[in-house]
């Protein structure tokens, strides 16, 4: 099977192809003409090998991640298992209220598990979660990192909260609340509250934030 371009993201092109007889996803980070060549090459190479490391580590924590098959930093390419399903961003629009709350709660548990294991996602949006027959998979770890800092965990919550707020603004409060419930289940109530408070603090740091 010829590689078939199925999605063009901001950072990478996603191809569906065959790898050792099975359907697989090839993620290729493409050069950016707006970056100096040396800067661009170093960013793509670093993120590619970094993403592979993160996928492996997150999987070890028991969080569903597409299985890593192959990595080539020179061509900034990763090959991984194909997850056949929509992004959570898309799926949320098709679900009943209890259904979407359930998904967000599961996502909370997954991110909580990662944080408990000392890994932050770095680009936590509902576009970076795939849903295959109701099972959620975490993807896109290029900006992820090993960190137990509450600041970094707070950024994950902030990015997710903003992603929900900007596209699902009518139901955003309900979604984020369900997410927090799952998150607290993984990290414990105390850490959950601490991380949420940090998220609010980072938000306030933005220059314009009216109090009260």
């Amino acid at each position, binding site marked *: 099977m010829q590689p078939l371009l199925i999605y*063009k*993201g*901001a*950072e990478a092109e996603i191809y569906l192809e065959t790898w050792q007889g099975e359907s697989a996803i090839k993620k290729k980070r493409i050069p*950016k*003409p*707006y*970056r*100096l060549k*040396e*800067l661009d090459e170093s*960013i793509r190479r670093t993120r590619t090998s970094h993403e592979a490391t993160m996928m492996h580590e997150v999987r070890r924590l028991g969080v569903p991640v597409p299985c890593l098959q192959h990595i080539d930093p020179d061509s900034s390419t990763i090959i991984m298992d194909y997850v056949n399903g929509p992004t959570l961003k898309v799926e949320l629009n098709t679900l009943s209220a209890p259904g979407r709350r359930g998904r967000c709660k599961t996502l909370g548990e997954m991110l909580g598990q990662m944080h408990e294991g000392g890994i932050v996602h*770095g*680009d*936590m*949006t509902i*576009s970076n979660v795939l849903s295959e027959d109701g099972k959620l998979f975490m993807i896109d770890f290029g*900006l992820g990192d090993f960190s137990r800092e509450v600041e970094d965990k707070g*950024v994950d919550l902030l*990015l997710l909260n*903003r*992603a929900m*707020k*900007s596209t699902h*603004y*009518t139901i955003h409060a309900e979604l984020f609340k369900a997410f927090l419930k799952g998150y607290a289940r993984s990290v414990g109530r105390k850490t959950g509250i601490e991380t949420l408070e940090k998220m609010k603090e*980072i938000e306030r*740091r*933005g*220059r*314009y*934030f*009216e*109090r009260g």
Partner: protein
Amino acid sequence: MHCLGIESTAHTFGAGVVTEKGEILSDVRDVYVSAPGTGIHPREAAEHHSEVAAQIITSALNQAGITASNLAGVAVALGPGLGPCLRVGATVARSLAAYFDIPLVPVNHAIGHIEIGTLTTGAKDPLVVLVSGGHTAIAAFSGRRWRIFGETEDITLGNLYDMFAREINLPSPAGPEIERLTQKAREFISLPYVVKGNDVSYSGLLTASLSKLKSGARLEDVCYSMQEVSCSMLAEAVERSLAYTGKKEILLTGGVAANKSLQSKLEEVAKMHDAVCHVVKSPFTGDNGAQIAWTGMLALRAGLVTSVDEARVRPRWRLEDVDIPWRAG
């Protein structure tokens, strides 16, 4: 039908008059320039504004060929911005509204940058990239509000340049001078590139740039590398937001929109995603009264007026908290 707009959120005191068709009849301003090596001193800027206010407003009305009593409304930027500066504009606007009995229209300064951008470029439904001393934000319109998709998590792009400039004794705003220095660069110095989702963080870049300078790197090379890294970071955040929202237009607006390197990077981003990149027309990159007048006109037609008693300044008024009834989407 004419609307007067008053701008005094930061270093600029400006006044402008527009018609309901969006014709800009006047745009008069005066900029407080800080002493080299210092930033904007809010009280000194406010004193500057008080001194020039009467003359700027009179010129704006004269150039438009209109008297205050014939205005359909007086619009004022009540925030976000520096408290002492905002209060000058607010006081002047309240006085005019009360004395001539004209409707008073509260305007959010950031919305002003966006509306003048769409007016002067014809952008319809853009992903907005608002860059200035006070903002580095990526927003798109939906459900009567501009929704934020990405922004800086600490200092803004304008701040980065101004704070760097302060250390090397340049006056702010310093963007144009830094851009001029980049022309003489010889080499690229590696500096921290920090993108978090659709957000950027510039504080580490500021620290690293200053420390390179202190350890003997050429000023021109540091300026060039800092500009390259900061604009590439924002371009990447914009590209991510563009992919996320699926918008087909970018609108670059605000004071730092004048930066050529940023413009060309965003044009590249647009090209890669079959989108169009609009850049707010000069001289409306910088703060001005005309954009407040035009936003005021849109608000006035939608019936958004306030009473003189209630027109209080809002130094931290967020862009996403403004209800916009006049825009579809």
